[in-house]
């Protein structure tokens, strides 16, 4: 009776463990990486609040949370895979080492016997646990990434424990070799290898299977012990306190894993015992179940428990175990791949002219109407008032409706960025003053020429503010017909939308573009048909409320741009933006949290950027905003470099932090290197500074310097972004 109960218990635990590995979402719908309940926000008066995790077990979180606010139950469910996989690999390594050596020793090999004997004695004398702690706590191991950490664990723990198993196998092999039927095998001419594989192994494998499960339980116990000493896989250590000259650190695991939860034991056993109790229970039940199963298997195989077709039972169990480890291919938490397609949008059917799209010009009006209609169709609601389109006052701006810049018959229009606009049609020679001191009052007086000249100046060491001032000063001189500043275009924030209009054209020309030998014989033609912007910008503020009763109010904000220099780049950008929205909202079950979408105007120049308008208002509860994803730096290109800035997503804002880590993982997976933003200023941190929204900036920009291998297209970028958003919409 007891034996059968033992069998049922063992089977039940095994099945539950396998189910947790294969179908974790069946047990919990909470993302183990996400923090639900870590309330960190900035209130209306600007005070930063922190409602501290760990939270005790309560409604909505049956086992409470850990120090980072992660659900314990979710960590246990999702941690089953990593913990069990780790234990499995360690046991497999032990068997891989022990079986051949045990067999060789059992067949008389003194070397093999000596090896396992000495190793077994050595690790039997030294406390294995202590040894593992010392080694795995070394800096080298602590700093490893997840996969290397797993590898080092498996190698070390596998190696220190295989001796004992080897000895048991050697004894059994020796004993089987003494059976008379082995003499029968020798008498028919079998070699030792054949005897080992066909006779000895056949007698031994049922025991090996039983040993496997018992060893599994033993390894889990070891992992539990190591966890208590804060030795676990995927270490993240961060510093809590450095006062009084001592560094107090908190060790957590980035990955869900049982042993890591026990690592919190030291710090939290009194104040938050549930963090330790539940994972310890999980270990306890698993070890108990696996031991029960191993013993029951032994009883089944020896006939003490009668089962119909015991061999089928054993094979069934083995298949179950194998499937759960081999069948689950992906190492990541997420089983599904979120697809992304750049869908054909009807944007190409719009009647756009060849002008840019920006700041309330005719193209912009068509664009915003179109986007509003698209948002309405997708179920978005206005965030403010009863219209998605919201106007905001702006200063007058200038942009080129049509522009041409030709240098010595070479069209360099696409290599320049306009700083000061106007209606121009000039043809002039170039004067190279790149080495001149631009603050020299007599500089212009020294220019002695009868023809019209365009100055070529070196803007590398001047700020945009200085360049504006110098240009304004120089423009007063009648001798000057235009100014070309040489500068790395990546350091300039504005893109052809300017609030400066002078008597002469002022342009930035990319430093990478080489002009050989600037002499008076070089001629430049500059033509511009300038337009003035309306004094109103148009933002679109839309919201898609979340469906989850517990976290529906938490929001992610997406900032998108719609200004573009050409009709073609606008179409590409619009297609990208709408496809991203489609990919994020199409799975209705995934819309747990609220999604706020901002289409911002004036993104080409900080002075006009519509984000300032949003920042001045309180359109949504500040404490519920988890993250602002700024995609306004995505340009409508075929291929470009990825910009990525996560400086405004510190680890204390855990949702944003894990979001940024996951995006970085996406980049790693595709072997793409993102670049930092070279011209970062306060505008990039506006929402973080003013409202406390952790911010992540992702962009796509053109760059002629890098090779194609580091460039991606909009589809790839969209894939990465929407995958991470969808993964975090729990």
């Amino acid at each position, binding site marked *: 009776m007891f034996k059968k109960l033992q069998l049922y218990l063992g089977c039940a635990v095994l099945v539950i463990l396998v189910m947790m590995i294969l179908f974790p979402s069946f047990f919990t719908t909470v993302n183990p990486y996400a923090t639900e309940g870590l309330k960190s926000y900035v209130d209306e008066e600007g005070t930063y609040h922190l409602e501290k995790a760990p939270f005790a077990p309560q409604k909505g979180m049956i086992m409470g949370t850990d120090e980072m606010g992660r659900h314990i139950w979710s960590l246990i469910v999702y941690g089953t895979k990593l913990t069990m996989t780790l234990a499995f690999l360690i046991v497999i390594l032990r068997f891989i080492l022990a079986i051949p050596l045990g067999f060789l020793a059992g067949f008389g090999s003194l070397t093999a016997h000596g090896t396992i004997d000495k190793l077994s004695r050595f690790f039997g004398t030294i406390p294995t646990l202590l040894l593992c702690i010392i080694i795995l706590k070394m800096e080298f191991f602590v700093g490893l990434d997840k996969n290397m950490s797993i590898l080092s664990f498996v190698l070390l723990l596998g190696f220190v424990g295989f001796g004992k198993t080897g000895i048991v196998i050697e004894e059994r092999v020796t004993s089987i070799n003494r059976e*008379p039927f082995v003499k029968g095998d*020798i008498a028919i001419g079998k070699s030792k290898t054949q005897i080992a594989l066909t006779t000895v192994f056949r007698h031994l494998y049922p025991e090996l299977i039983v040993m496997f499960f018992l060893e599994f339980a033993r390894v889990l116990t070891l992992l539990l012990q190591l966890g208590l000493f804060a030795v676990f896989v995927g270490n993240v250590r961060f510093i809590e306190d450095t006062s009084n000259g001592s560094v107090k650190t908190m060790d957590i695991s980035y990955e869900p894993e049982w042993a890591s939860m026990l690592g919190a034991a030291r710090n939290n056993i009194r104040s938050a015992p549930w963090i330790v109790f539940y994972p310890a229970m999980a270990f306890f039940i698993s070890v108990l179940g696996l031991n029960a199963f191993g013993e029951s298997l032994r009883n089944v195989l020896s006939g003490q428990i009668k089962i119909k077709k015991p061999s089928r039972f054993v094979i069934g169990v083995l298949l179950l175990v194998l499937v759960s480890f081999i069948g689950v291919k992906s190492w990541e938490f997420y089983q599904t791949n979120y697809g992304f397609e750049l869908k054909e949008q009807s944007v190409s059917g719009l009647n756009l002219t060849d002008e840019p799209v920006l700041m309330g010009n005719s193209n912009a009006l068509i664009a915003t109407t179109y986007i509003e209609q698209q948002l309405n169709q997708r179920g978005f609601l206005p965030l403010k008032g009863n219209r998605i389109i919201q106007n905001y006052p702006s200063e007058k701006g200038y942009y080129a409706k049509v522009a041409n810049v030709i240098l010595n018959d070479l069209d360099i229009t696409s290599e320049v960025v306009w700083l000061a606009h106007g209606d121009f049609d000039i043809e002039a020679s170039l004067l190279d003053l790149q080495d001149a001191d631009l603050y020299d009052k007599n500089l212009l007086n020294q220019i002695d020429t009868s023809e019209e000249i365009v100055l070529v100046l070196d803007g590398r060491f001047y700020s945009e503010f200085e360049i504006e001032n110098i240009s304004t000063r120089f423009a007063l001189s009648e001798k000057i017909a235009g100014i070309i500043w040489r500068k790395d275009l990546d350091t300039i924030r504005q893109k052809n939308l300017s609030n400066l209009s002078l008597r002469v054209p002022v342009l930035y020309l990319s430093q990478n573009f080489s002009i050989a030998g600037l002499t008076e014989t070089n001629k430049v033609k500059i033509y511009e048909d300038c337009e003035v912007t309306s004094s109103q910008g148009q933002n679109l503020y839309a919201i898609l409320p979340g469906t989850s009763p517990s976290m529906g109010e938490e929001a992610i904000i997406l900032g998108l741009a719609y200004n573009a220099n050409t009709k073609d780049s606008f179409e590409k950008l619009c297609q990208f933006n709408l496809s991203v929205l489609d990919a994020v909202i199409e799975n209705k079950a995934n819309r747990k949290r609220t999604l706020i979408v901002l289409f911002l105007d004036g993104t080409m120049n900080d002075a006009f950027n519509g984000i300032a308008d949003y920042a001045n208002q309180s359109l949504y509860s500040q404490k519920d905003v988890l993250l602002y994803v700024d995609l306004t730096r995505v340009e409508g290109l075929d291929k470009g470099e990825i910009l990525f800035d996560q400086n405004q997503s510190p680890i204390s804002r855990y949702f944003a932090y894990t979001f940024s880590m996951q995006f970085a993982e996406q980049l790693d997976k595709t072997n793409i290197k993102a670049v930092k933003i070279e011209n970062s200023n306060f505008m990039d941190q506006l929402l973080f500074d003013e409202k406390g929204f952790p911010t992540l900036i992702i962009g796509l920009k053109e760059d002629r310097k890098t090779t194609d291998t580091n460039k991606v297209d909009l589809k790839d970028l969209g894939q990465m972004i929407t995958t991470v958003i969808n993964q975090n919409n729990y």
Partner: protein
Amino acid sequence: MLRVENLKVKFDQIQVVRGITFTLRQGMILSVLGESGSGKSVSAMSIMKLYGENQALITADKLSLNEIDLLSINERSMQKIRGVQIAYIFQNPNDALSPNKTIRSQFKELFRVHHRTYDEKEIEALLETVGLNIESKYILNMYPHQLSGGQAQRVTIALALSLNPKVIIADEPTSSIDASLTDVIVELLLSINKKYGISILFITHDFDLAARISDEILILYGGLVMEYGKKTEIFNHAKHPYTQELMKCVNSIQSRDGELYTLTGYALDPTEFKDECPFWYRCMYSTVVCKSQIPQLIEARDTSSCFVRCIHALEVNNE
């Protein structure tokens, strides 16, 4: 032809077999007779080198099978000979057969080891040859524990015959089966010998059996050959005192009147072997000379191909 000259076998420091010599010619049946502990099975297993290198030390002046020197060849070559040129039938068939494999898979294994093709029809015919007519079809699906002793022993004989060996060593093949089946097995071995011309080295402690089956008989005692010669010579003109005593015992059983004749004393344990005639303390003819050295095995003067190890053999027989 299997030639053995001065075969000695040592386990640890104990010399168990101290010098066995015989020649097993083509088509001949040679019985090795002796009490328990005389070294019969050890000699037989040593000929096939069934002991591991660190288990037994085997030496001989000559140990050859058809000019192949079995002592000096390596294990790999020996594996090719075992089962093919020389086969072994164990005392207990259930020990020889692997308990968790069907009879069919045991045959298949034998063929696989020696890279021969397994033909089910041939094996069924072979099983019929060894007397398993009716059962031959379903016996192949059975496990050894499902067979009777007689069936199992016949299966081992069939296994031994599978690859047409030249020599079969039968180690007390009837000891562990019913007495009623002894005849069957013995007849079977005789018919194999006649039909296929296979030489048989027949190990036994049963005089009657040896009488029925053998061409020549070898008497073992104390790890040494005491007497060796043709069956008729041994039975009608036994020269060694030990052989004569054995004959008295057998005759006493057969005569069925009065008490059974017994040989006084007990056989020596290998640890008690010394450099002396191992039978001297039980022998009525022994003298001081018998205690001082191991007698040589010499050819009897009046008969050829009959050898005896006794200093007093002539005197004993002239009486």
